[in-house]
Structures are given as structure tokens and as C-alpha cells.
């Protein structure tokens, strides 16, 4: 078994962005791997760029962190100069400029999602290479390979907020079941005109798929738990 701890920190990952009538739902798993070792089992791959725009990061952890740091800084300046909140399109474009102009040195796929008053909820996918594609839903990361068929069948226009979030959680959970590089917990971020809601679904609370076993209580938990009550007369 090759456990290369010097390998670059990459996020195996499943990331998803979905529009619904009124906003967007972003979802991601939480596994960051270094070679075959899980370096962080509870990472947060959905990063804030502005109050109303978030980005899902995949690929090289370092590259995606630096790109989102730069874009957060540019958007902050832009918001000050513009005098009103930045639009999702501008955020996506800034990311695209960095991703395209440095395509030889960066290895990161991003999904930008947010809500602004002009266009409403929007999702932009920016894969390796620096294309920017506006989509009603976008999937990315190594786990997304297992979701293309699922989304073709399950996605529909004009979902409600609850339907959209359930779809995202189900999809990430399916990808986690099949992709070794995705795992941990499912994090979702819902962005609409009212604001931003963050949700968290621990791995053992997710629905079980084909051939998955029930989560067992760890022997350590049983041993560490309080002993049986003393006998009372």
C-alpha cells in the first residue's frame, strides 16, 4: 500500500451546484486526501467569496484556496467601487480569468453559485482549463463521474428549496458510496434573496445504498461509556 505523505494535498471530492426557483443550493463532501491518507475528514469545501456568492472547490487544495483568496479580495474591492453587492457573473468571470491565464500551473475545478437581484440564483461551472459555463446545475470532482446519469434522470426545472437540497444531499451521498476519494460529511449551502443557510449532514445519518451496512457502535464507545448501574436492594 503506497502511503505517500509527501504527495500534494488534493481534494478527491464531489461538488454540486443546483438552481431552484428562488436561489441555489451548493453541496460538497468533506474529504481531503494526501495520497492514500485522509488528511482532513471534515474539511469545508464551500468557501465564501461575498455575502451572496459562494464557491465549491475541487482539485489541488492549495491551488483552489489561493484562487478563492484572490477572488475574494478582488470582489471586496469591486463591491466597494461599485457601491452594491457583486453579481454572481462577475465572481465567475474573475475566477475564470485566473483559471484560464494560469492554466498551465493550476489544477483546480470550481463551481460558483450565488444569488443577485438582477439574475436571481445562478450556477457557473469552471472546470480545468478555465472555461466558464452557466448551467442550471453543475457537478464536479472525482465523485461526479458517478452522478451524470443520476442527474440526467433526477433533475427537473423549478424545484422547491427542500426538493433541491434533498437532491443535493442524495447525490453527494451516492457519490461518497462509490468514490474512494470522497467521504466524511455532506455540507450544503442554500443562497437566496433572504440570505445564506449552512447545513451539515454527518456521514452516519445518510441513507444507506446498495450493500452498505448499518453503522455499528464502535467498541471504544461501548468501553468508554458508563458501566452498568450498581445493583440496588
Amino acid at each position: 500500500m503506497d502511503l505517500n505523505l509527501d504527495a500534494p494535498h488534493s481534494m478527491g471530492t464531489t461538488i454540486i451546484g443546483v438552481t431552484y426557483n428562488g436561489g441555489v443550493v451548493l453541496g460538497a463532501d468533506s474529504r481531503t486526501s494526501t495520497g492514500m491518507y485522509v488528511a482532513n475528514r471534515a474539511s469545508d469545501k464551500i468557501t465564501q467569496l461575498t455575502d451572496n456568492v459562494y464557491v465549491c472547490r475541487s482539485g489541488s487544495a492549495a491551488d483552489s484556496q489561493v484562487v478563492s483568496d484572490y477572488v475574494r479580495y478582488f470582489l471586496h474591492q469591486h463591491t466597494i467601487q461599485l457601491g452594491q453587492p457583486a453579481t454572481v457573473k462577475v465572481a465567475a468571470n474573475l475566477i475564470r480569468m485566473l483559471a484560464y491565464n494560469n492554466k498551465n500551473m493550476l489544477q483546480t475545478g470550481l463551481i460558483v453559485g450565488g444569488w443577485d437581484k438582477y439574475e436571481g440564483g445562478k450556477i457557473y461551472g469552471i472546470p480545468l482549463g478555465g472555461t466558464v459555463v452557466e448551467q442550471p446545475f453543475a457537478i464536479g470532482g472525482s465523485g461526479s463521474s458517478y452522478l451524470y446519469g443520476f442527474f440526467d434522470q433526477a433533475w427537473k426545472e423549478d424545484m422547491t428549496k427542500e426538493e433541491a437540497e434533498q437532491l443535493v444531499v442524495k447525490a453527494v451521498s451516492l457519490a461518497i458510496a462509490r468514490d474512494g476519494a470522497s467521504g466524511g460529511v455532506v455540507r450544503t449551502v442554500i443562497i437566496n434573496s433572504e440570505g445564506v443557510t449552512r447545513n451539515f449532514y454527518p456521514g452516519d445519518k445518510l441513507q444507506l445504498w446498495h450493500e452498505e451496512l448499518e453503522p455499528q457502535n464502535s467498541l471504544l464507545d461501548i468501553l468508554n461509556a458508563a458501566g452498568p448501574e450498581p445493583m440496588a436492594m
Partner: protein
Amino acid sequence: MSQSSIDLPPKGGFSFDLCKRNDMLTQKGLKAPSFLKTGTTIVGLIFKDGVILGADTRATEGPIVADKNCEKIHYMAPNIYCCGAGTAADTEAVTDMVSSQLRLHRYQTGQDSRVITALTLLKKHLFGYQGHVSAALVLGGVDITGPHLHTIYPHGSTDTLPFATMGSGSLAAMSVFEAKYKEGLTRDEGIKLVAEAICSGIFNDLGSGSNVDICVITKGHKEYLRNYMEPNPRTYVSSKGYSFTKKTEVLLTKITPLSERVEIVEVAGEAMEE
């Protein structure tokens, strides 16, 4: 006189040309000069009142133990310390550099340093060198916003965690943390857990060994417990001490002052000119 290529002005920044040459040479079979790697088990955890950092003390040079008692917990600021794994020179240099930058920043701002400042300075530097600065760090401290613990990887990515381990012994130490960590540990429980995790690395990882160093940082106070635990004492020490027979025989002792041997000549002339 012809020039085969136009000399471009240096653009600044790190030149990666030699890295490609080095890779090519290693592929051809040339053994690169080895550098002092720390092997290492380093850990950090957040407890009720702050942060506890821990490290082993073995520095290796390939299979040889170069330093049996080195210091891997580096000072960054009065309220921030950083454990370093990877190439010893890289961790020392990068932590010293950022420590100076933080000090200058403190003079400018007039406020205590924040952990996130150290984090940003380190990650910007490491990302710029694209992983060639082999420093994997566990950064911990307590500032005005509370206790913080971060891990920084050589390529420049960072994670923020309640407990973290790095280095070759990280798997052994992480297994101890995953089994026994809980939120709201007291100071003594935290120190005990950190010592246990480092010992797990010391005894189960070949790249880690010797003693346990611990650093406890709380609001307004820090405690650097150097060699908190020494689980590897020298087993057999001769009580008589060691004496070595003199092998070199002294034949003659004579002192000749140099002025007898050398002629000093004064040159009458002008004073030296550049």
C-alpha cells in the same frame, strides 16, 4: 561576436529551471545530496482554555539519527508557536522568517499578532515555492479572537482543525487522537493525550524518537515544557566513566615567535588607492 539568444531582464521570483535539471539528473541515476529531514511526529489540539502543541525530538539524516534532542516547536510570537516537520532547514528558515515578519507587523500595528496572520504569511510563501520548500507545519496559538489550530502543507494548502497531526508518525498519533479526543478537555487531560500521541509516534515510527516536547498556550500565558517526558534514557552508562589512552606522543615543545622569522618591509610611497 554573435549572440544566440537575447538576454531577458530577470523577472524576479523563484526560478524553477534548476529543479527540472535536478529531476533530469536523478532520473539519469545521480544521487541527490541528502538533507536533514526531521522524520517526526508533531501534534496539536485545542482544549478548554487554549492550544497544546507536542513534538518528538529526533532529527534524521537518512537512516542515521543526526540529533537526538532537537527542538521542533518553534517560536513565532509570544502567543503563537509552530511545530515543523519535513526538511529541518526549511522549517527553521520559514518559521524564523515569518516570526520576524510578525514582529515588524506588531510594531506597525501596536497589537498582538493573530494566528491567521501567521497562517497567511506561511501559506503565501510555501505556495510561491510550489512545494519545493519541504515544510509541513502545525501552527497553534491564542489571540484576541480565541484559540486557533491550523495545519499547513508544503504546497501551501491549510486546514483548520480541533486536533491535528503531521510528519511520518502522524498516522500513529492520529489513531490516538481519534480514539480519545473529546471537546472541552482540561489542561492535564490535554497534556496527557498529547504526550500519549507523541509516544505512539516515537515507539511505532522509525523516523521519530527520543523525548516529548510540549507547549501549552492559553490566553495571556504560555508554557514551553522542553523534554516534558524522556521515555528513552540511555540504558547502560558506565559508572567509572570513559578514559582513552593517549596515542599521540609529544616529542618536542618549542615556541618560535614569528617576528624572528619574518622580515617586515616598509614601502615608502603613496597611500593605497582604490
